């Protein structure tokens, strides 16, 4: 059996690597100013979030978690549990690191929701758009973040800005997908009723489709938060401090226990943020119509 029947013939060669390199070089040299301005804009946003979070004394943050959980779940047990969990991050000596990580996560989640939710809504409205967007989302989720992080770091510098960008790229697809999916699943009859009463597209969206799709959209938000938090370590690989850095340090030092401690802190953040977001969105639904 000839070799090419088994192994892929090596004579066929597609080289996209060089053009990509040239393109990146071009970006770095020609578009520097442009990327700088993006960076600076984002940096201001990030810094202000960071600033606010820094400002909050530890006991206030715990109190906020307590009150929010209580008001949302109406269960004092839950409220105490979540406050204790957050408290334990401090007790593990990771309070400052948590604050840093928190601001990155909050920024990424905010940006993801701002981008993902409207995009999902848009995509739900057209099968054509969906079939265009779907492979893009696949790409965003599976293109290894390092591949674009390093060029991004070269364009934007190391630190929070490219980390937030990469986190957003990775975290936004589930929200887009689930928003679109949720809206598509809404009962046709209910939408028809809305149409029949003279709802504009916008009105049937806001007043009918989105509220009806809310449970699914909330699953999307949850996934987006999970994805964003799962990028914490990756972010630390391009210079973000915080819990991710702690994980990297302990891994490089082969300190499994220390790594797990930081990991647990991250998980606690994830659980608390997830619960609060779900609660807030549920409450928020009530206000969506006027």
């Amino acid at each position, binding site marked *: 059996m000839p070799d090419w029947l088994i192994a892929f013939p090596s004579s066929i060669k597609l080289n996209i690597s060089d053009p990509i390199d040239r393109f990146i070089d071009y970006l770095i040299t020609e578009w520097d100013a442009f990327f700088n301005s993006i960076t600076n804009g984002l940096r201001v946003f990030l810094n202000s979030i960071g600033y606010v979070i820094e400002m909050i004394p530890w006991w206030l943050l715990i109190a906020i978690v307590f009150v929010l959980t209580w008001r949302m779940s109406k269960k004092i047990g839950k409220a105490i549990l979540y406050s204790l969990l957050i408290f334990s991050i401090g007790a593990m000596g990771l309070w400052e690191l948590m604050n840093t990580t928190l601001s990155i996560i909050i920024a990424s989640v905010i940006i993801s929701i701002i981008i993902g939710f409207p995009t999902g809504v848009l995509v739900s409205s057209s099968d054509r758009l969906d079939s265009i967007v779907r492979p893009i989302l696949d790409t965003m989720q599976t293109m290894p973040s390092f591949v674009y992080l390093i060029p991004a770091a070269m364009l934007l510098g190391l630190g929070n800005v490219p980390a937030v960008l990469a986190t957003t790229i990775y975290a936004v697809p589930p929200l887009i997908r689930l928003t679109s999916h949720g809206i598509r699943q809404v009962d046709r009859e209910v939408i028809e009723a809305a149409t029949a009463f*003279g709802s504009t597209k916008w009105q049937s969206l806001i007043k009918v489709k989105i509220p009806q799709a809310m449970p699914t959209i909330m699953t999307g938000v949850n996934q987006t938060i999970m994805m964003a938090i799962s990028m914490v370590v990756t972010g630390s690989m391009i210079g973000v401090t915080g819990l991710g850095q702690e994980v990297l340090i302990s891994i490089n030092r082969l300190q499994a226990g220390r790594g797990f401690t930081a990991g647990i802190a991250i998980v606690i953040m994830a659980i608390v943020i997830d619960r609060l977001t779900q609660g807030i969105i549920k409450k928020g639904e009530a206000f969506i119509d006027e």
Partner: protein
Amino acid sequence: MNNKNNIILEVKNLSKLFGKNKVPAFEMIKNGSDKREVAKKLGVTVAVNDVSFQVERGKIFVLIGLSGSGKSTVVRCLNLLQKPTSGDILFEGKSILSFDKKELLEYRRYKVSMVFQSFGLMSHRNVLENVAYGLEVRGTKKAERGNRAREIIKLVGLEGWEDKSISQLSGGMRQRVGIARALANDPEILLMDEPFSALDPLVRSDMQFELLSLQKKLNKTVVFITHDINEAFKLGDMVAIMKDGKIIQMDTPENMAANPANEYVENFINSVDKGQIYSVKHIMQTPSCMIRIKDGANNALKQMRDNSVSSAYVVGENLELIGILTIDDAMRVRTGEISIQDAIIRDILTTNEDTLVSDLLSVAASAKYPIAVVDEDNCLKGIVSKAAVLSSLV
């Protein structure tokens, strides 16, 4: 009556097909193939096939017909929930198909509201919010629409349920929420797709009454689908019967009941309670023996014998009804036993031409003599015999 300006809604050669291959299917039906053939050959469902009708302002237009005959589809075309495959629909003379976005929105918001066959309620909203939906999208203020919705909720008998979620309601309650939502909008045209099907007779007749009084008082136009022939004939100013996507007869209830276009229609309206459609004018006869009071007893006796009846109606100068004279009494007048004035039985039953036969039933049953039909001036127009009442119900 048939004034062009009074036509609020006009449907012209409306057709609606479902499925692919619409163009060849359209050819087929144009060439006279029927629904079944088209479905078999091309897999296309001909839901509505060349339907035309006009609805006058302030009238109730009723669609009845076999299940699957295309009634819902017609109605859903009227507010463009479904886009017609061909044909045109004119609202106040203007094609709604030519409406731009804004016009269509205005049309749906202010001109036309719909009650859905399967309710189409919004499960994320409570009863009040469902009912207020139409007002909300119009931009009515919260307090105002709340008041209006509460008013209508009361009207449909759901007071106290405002804050319940839809899943907590029974079937009939859900249907009433759907009705309330459409009424709250106070539209010119109400499209009602079997709106009362899940309602018990008490609530249903309340609703029918409300609908009729709305229509009368506020000059609302209604397009109404029902399977209840009695309801159709009770409410409808005009009734159309659909079969296989076509209208096979369209007429007033009386005419339709009297002259069904074919056996199908006859079968269809068979179960109707005809007492509810027929009014006295349909069954009254010319009195076979009518005498003037000045004619005297002899003349009366002669007339009765000639017509071989045992009583005669006595009228005055202007044909106004005075009473009944029986043959026995007439003989007693002739023998001088009593005066003609005393002999006349004045305490007789009268009715008028527009009374429904069903309303006459109880009277007719206990009446000794045929019932006299008079006009406003008490002039005798005819008589209704027991036998006539009975046979009208067949």
